[in-house]
């Protein structure tokens, strides 16, 4: 049936874009007014998205595609188009909702910053690009928005530009994700030349790879899929390109919530989902995705155990959860992946915003300097607690359902992947418990005066927490083992539901065990905190230093690039320019030789002339008489 609102979907990104344009052009000197414009724009987007989603839920509308010619050059004929499907509608809602809440939150969080309008304009641009990414009907436009969200992320990470760490983190984020982007770019180049009619839109992709598979050889398909996955790895902070995400926490906390937890980092997952037809055509690619996802999930979770920065713990948790999603994709369950993406967006945003409130209150991010905040910041503590539980996968909170869906799918494919998933769930629960107990319970370990002043944030900051907490509780019910509504809606009826009892039991057990262990260590103190660090100091050190990956990269890439650059600089100067100078010098040398000849002695001149005569005659005429 025809759609009414879907055709106005382009307005969804247009609102924040307009806000961005207005703020950039006229926003200098405005402060709160500008912020409100951006917030209202995101609200408008949210409202429209919601209407579209509801329309689609209610009427089960057809997909809508619209757009205009964007680039005509040679064989290239690309449109800037948008496509509204159930999947995109869902993403629209998630993105706009989180964006709106984060905007609202930021009104309070960033209230004292003099560059508030700049901040909001960046956020607006990000929202717009993210929505564009979601709506894009072809890979090219998706890539364009993909890069734009990257830039916004970069801008916002480096928002506090005076801090050298922020500068470094922004740079790192941009460059590391760019590595992934290159993969995506090459994948697009490949697709362009292999696809019939150079089509890059998702409908054609679906046609070629799903409906009439076999047009493109398997090896090329695998290559394309892997390259796309490289892009996703970069964006979604999967191993080995995860290094930028924890550093990205140098940005303002709302940004961490919006970009580095809920939306942008999930774009990698979204990309794989969007191009899943290609992955499905190649088992090797799927396996890779699953293995990388599983490894990342476990790997990041272990690091999360040993971090002391509240946001970094959450960041590694994000990496870990994204790993889950990849795992889900790798085992072929897009539903599980999208489901987890959906729930994760809410509870992770919640956690970050809660962390933001804490940081806002006591101006430190080190959990070792916190403690006992639960009594001073009740709303924060409660909502944060819900988030922790949701993330840990405690039923019936949303995280439980989505994680369970993933583990079930994994178990179906391979017990090993399942085992890794369960182990990760345990670690997740453990580090989240550690985080919660260290921050909100016990005694204050930091500055007493600060502690005394700590209180809940203003309403603009609290309301988002409450809304998100509510969502963290309920959003899981869209897809339970009992009703596969989300899956059937997303993929138009091909719902295939299964729930493994083993999976449910194992994951709940692991979560509870983790939380219990955390309680024992960090709240009750039954187990000494240095129980591990005193026995296995190297292990703790290894985890604290994040397996020395950063150091390794520094050595492998940064140093070697610098070394190569220095070497080439010498080469450029000595060899390339040297050759030029040599040529110049040769002429000058000839000139000097001539100057030496000009000694003022006419007889010398004559002598040279005579010798030249002899040589000339012998060389030219002489050869005829030889």
């Amino acid at each position, binding site marked *: 049936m025809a759609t009414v609102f879907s055709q106005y979907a382009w307005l969804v990104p247009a609102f924040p874009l307009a806000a961005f344009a207005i703020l950039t052009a006229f926003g200098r000197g405005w402060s709160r007014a500008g912020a409100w414009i951006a917030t209202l724009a995101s609200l408008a987007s949210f409202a429209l998205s919601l209407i579209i989603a509801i329309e689609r839920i209610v009427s089960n509308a057809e997909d809508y595609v619209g757009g205009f010619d964007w680039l005509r050059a040679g064989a290239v004929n690309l449109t800037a188009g948008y496509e509204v499907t159930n999947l995109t509608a869902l993403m629209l809602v998630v993105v706009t909702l989180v964006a709106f809440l984060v905007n609202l939150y930021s009104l309070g969080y960033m209230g004292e910053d003099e560059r508030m309008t700049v901040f909001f304009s960046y956020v607006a641009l990000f929202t717009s690009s993210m929505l564009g990414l979601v709506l894009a009907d072809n890979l090219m436009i998706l890539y364009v928005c993909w890069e734009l969200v990257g830039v916004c992320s970069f801008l916002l990470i480096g928002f506090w530009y005076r801090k050298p760490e922020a500068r470094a983190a922004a740079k790192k984020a941009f460059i590391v994700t760019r590595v992934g982007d290159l993969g995506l770019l090459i994948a697009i180049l490949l697709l362009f030349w292999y696809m019939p009619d150079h089509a890059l839109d998702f409908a054609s992709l679906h046609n070629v790879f799903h409906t009439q598979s076999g047009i493109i050889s398997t090896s090329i398909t695998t290559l394309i899929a892997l390259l796309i996955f490289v892009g996703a790895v970069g964006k979604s902070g999967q191993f080995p390109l995860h290094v930028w995400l924890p550093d990205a926490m140098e940005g303002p906390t709302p940004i961490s919530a919006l970009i580095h937890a809920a939306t942008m980092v999930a774009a990698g997952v979204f990309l794989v989902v969007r191009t899943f037809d290609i992955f499905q055509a190649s088992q090797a690619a799927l396996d890779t995705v699953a293995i990388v996802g599983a490894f990342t999930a476990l790997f990041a979770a272990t690091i999360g155990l040993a971090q002391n920065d509240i946001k970094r713990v959450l960041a590694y948790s994000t990496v870990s959860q994204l790993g889950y999603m990849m795992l889900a994709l790798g085992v072929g369950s897009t539903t599980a992946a999208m489901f987890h993406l959906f729930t994760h967006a809410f509870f992770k945003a919640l956690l970050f915003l809660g962390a933001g409130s804490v940081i806002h209150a006591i101006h430190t991010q080190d959990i070792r300097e916190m403690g006992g905040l639960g009594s001073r910041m009740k709303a924060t503590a409660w909502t944060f607690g819900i988030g922790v539980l949701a993330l840990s996968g405690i039923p019936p909170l949303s995280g439980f359902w989505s994680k369970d869906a993933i583990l079930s799918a994994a178990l179906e494919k391979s017990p090993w992947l399942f085992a890794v998933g369960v182990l990760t769930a345990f670690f997740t629960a453990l580090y989240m418990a550690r985080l919660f107990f260290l921050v909100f319970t016990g005694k204050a370990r930091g500055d007493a005066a600060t502690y005394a002043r700590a209180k809940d944030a203003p309403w603009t900051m609290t309301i988002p927490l409450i809304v998100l907490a509510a969502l963290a509780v309920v959003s899981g019910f869209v897809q339970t083992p009992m009703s596969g509504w989300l899956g059937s809606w997303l993929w138009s009826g091909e719902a295939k539901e299964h729930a493994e009892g083993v999976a449910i039991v194992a994951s709940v057990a692991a979560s509870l065990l983790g939380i219990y262990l955390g309680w024992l260590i960090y709240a009750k103190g039954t187990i000494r905190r240095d129980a591990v660090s005193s026995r296995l100091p190297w292990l703790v050190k290894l985890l604290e230093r994040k397996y020395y990956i950063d150091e390794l990269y520094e050595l492998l890439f940064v140093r070697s690039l610098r070394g190569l650059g220095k070497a080439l600089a010498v080469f450029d100067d000595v060899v390339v320019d040297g050759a030029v100078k040599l040529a110049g010098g040769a002429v000058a040398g000839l000139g000097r030789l001539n100057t030496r000849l000009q000694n003022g002695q006419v*007889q*010398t001149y004559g*002598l040279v002339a*005579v*010798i030249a*005569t*002899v040589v000339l*005659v*012998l060389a030219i005429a002489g050869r005829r*008489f030889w």
Partner: protein
Amino acid sequence: MLNFNIDFTGEFFAFFLLAVCAIVGAVLAVNFTKVVHMALSLAFTFVSLAGLYVVLQAEFVAFVQVLLYVGAVTILMIFGIMMTKHQSEGQERGRPLLETLAAIGCLCLFGILFYAIRSAGFAKPDVPLPDNNTLSIGKLLYSTYAIPFELVSVLLTVAFIGAVALAKREEDQP
């Protein structure tokens, strides 16, 4: 290649004698130490050449040679020598490098010339020169070579004016 199969005629003897004189004069001119001696030995060469011209049946040329070279040029040079101060050649440091290279260069040049001369097989000419050499030359000068002749007159005038202008002492010299 040096097959000197020469007809020993009278002309050859005259040539030989005069050639030796000319070469000796020239060589001596290069080797003397006193400038006047050099000039005089060169004059000797010029005279020898005049003799050769006679042998070559160019009496008028020989006459002019004596007149111009021995009579004018050499005297001019000796005037020049008189008007300037001279140290003898040998008293100064030699320039061995220059001299060696010059000698090599000249020898090579001579070698080339000699090779070229030797490689040419000259046929005996069949047309004799006119008997009345001087008259014929005179006629030529006034007919075919009238224009060069006139030009030479301009040239001599210019050389005369130029030489005087250059050599004369400036009266307003400080």
